């Protein structure tokens, strides 16, 4: 269709910041005047220790915010990869955190990016930056926004008390982008 219609699933362990990653993409989309929706998986299934969220970014009004046929998967851990690669559409974009996912994706119908996100985050001194690394990689790989647009959205999703960490987050984004060839 050529038109913008990103149906993104971001998934990982509870502590990996997948919701924030999704929010960052959403804010970036909003400030770029795209239609966008974000929705977390919610409720007691969270207890299991996994988390995921759906982000839809589109030129058209967003239909369902719930992504049942994703064309982007950002998988930060192995259970997430294994669960969601099964429903990835042909021609999709798959980014996986190869630092802790020791298997290769089975899915191979589009663009697959192996991203050592946790390693890059650890190099920056904070494993919690994994999500930012992934965000940078996604924006670079998809070309939906510029990296600058993404960076501009960062202050809107990080709570005030952590604003001192913004530069570090930006660095992580840039490293993530750089990791995508």
């Amino acid at each position, binding site marked *: 269709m050529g038109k913008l219609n990103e149906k993104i699933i971001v998934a990982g362990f509870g502590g990996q910041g997948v919701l924030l990653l999704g929010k960052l993409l959403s804010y970036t989309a909003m400030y770029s005047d795209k239609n966008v929706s974000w929705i977390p998986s919610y*409720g007691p299934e969270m207890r299991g220790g996994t988390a995921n969220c759906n982000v839809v970014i589109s030129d058209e009004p967003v239909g369902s915010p*719930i992504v049942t046929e994703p064309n982007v998967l950002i998988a930060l851990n192995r259970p997430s990869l294994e669960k969601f690669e099964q429903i990835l559409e042909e021609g999709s974009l798959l980014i996986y955190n190869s630092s802790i996912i020791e298997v290769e994706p089975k899915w191979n119908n589009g663009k697959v990016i192996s991203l050592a996100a946790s390693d890059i985050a650890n190099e920056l001194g904070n494993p919690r930056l994994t999500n930012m690394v992934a965000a940078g990689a996604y924006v670079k790989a998809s070309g939906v926004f510029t990296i600058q647009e993404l960076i501009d959205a960062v202050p809107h999703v990080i709570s005030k008390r952590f604003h001192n960490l913004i530069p570090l987050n930006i660095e992580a984004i840039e490293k993530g982008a750089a990791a995508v060839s």
Partner: protein
Amino acid sequence: MTEKVMMKGNEAIGEAAILAGCLTYFGYPITPQSELPAYLARRLLKMENGIFLQAESEVAAINMVYGAAGTGKRVMTSSSSPGISLKTEGISYIASSQLPCVIVNIVRGGPGLGNIAPAQSDYFQATKGGGHGDYRLIVLAPASVQEMADFTMLGFDLADEYRNPVMIMGDGALGQMMEPVVLKKPEIKKYNHDWVTDGAKGRGQNLICSIYLDPAEMEKYVHEIYAKYKIIEENEVRYEEYLCDDADYLIVSYGITSRIVRTSIDLARKKGIKVGLLRPITVWPFPTKVISEYADKVKKVMAVELSMGQMVEDVRLAVNGKVPVEFFGRTAGVLPSCNEVLAEIEKLV
């Protein structure tokens, strides 16, 4: 706040309520609406006249609303399906006493404890039964976070205008999702508050009550209320049309489902199927008249909703046999995909 912000539907309702002058909230926690009380707790507990009270139960909460509404304060409560069931007695009292208030139901999968995923299977409860006796709620069905906010503000106005409880019927998805939203403080009209129980200084007794031992007297009173409902049916029906003008097939669908249907309609149009969407915004009063008019023009009508078939009855009543009425529903927390709905549209042809 007049810039665009990303907000959850639940939170948008909360902020909209405050902007609409509702500083009094009573509720009891339940997923998937908990962000709404959490938001209001953060905001109202910091405001001088703000009242945020977590009640001991949904039954208590609705009765606190009943009390506060009787004093003329804008007041809100929110819950989700099982909690709304518990509130039905109170809602019947509120409707019977003609008290204005806003009741939010972020519907989840039922029946029973069910699950916390998006559903529309409380449609009957909201629009027909629920509590005992003859009464109606004005029921607004938003389809976006923006509408969650807008209809909350509208809801307070309608409630005051007609002295009737208004229900905002969302669902788990609308409550949990974030979308860009613009929140503008509305003008608030002055309503007649002659009737409120706020101390009888300089006047005789005001009374909030719904007991009428004499059936004839009560019947007269119920007829008065129904005369009001008639006016509401005439003046307050709201709906949205999408590609209906030339449609051979009309889909009726509301809330979150209507968005999916819209996408499906775009897909169907590309395949050359002339299909349009009529989206009830007020599910009570239901847009019976316009659907009836379309029924004279289209070949078929289809209701699409998240239930085993509830709104479809109102669609059938509107169509009244003029053309076939089909039904497609998913329930118990399942949302259909746009391709699924597309397939159903294709079957119509």
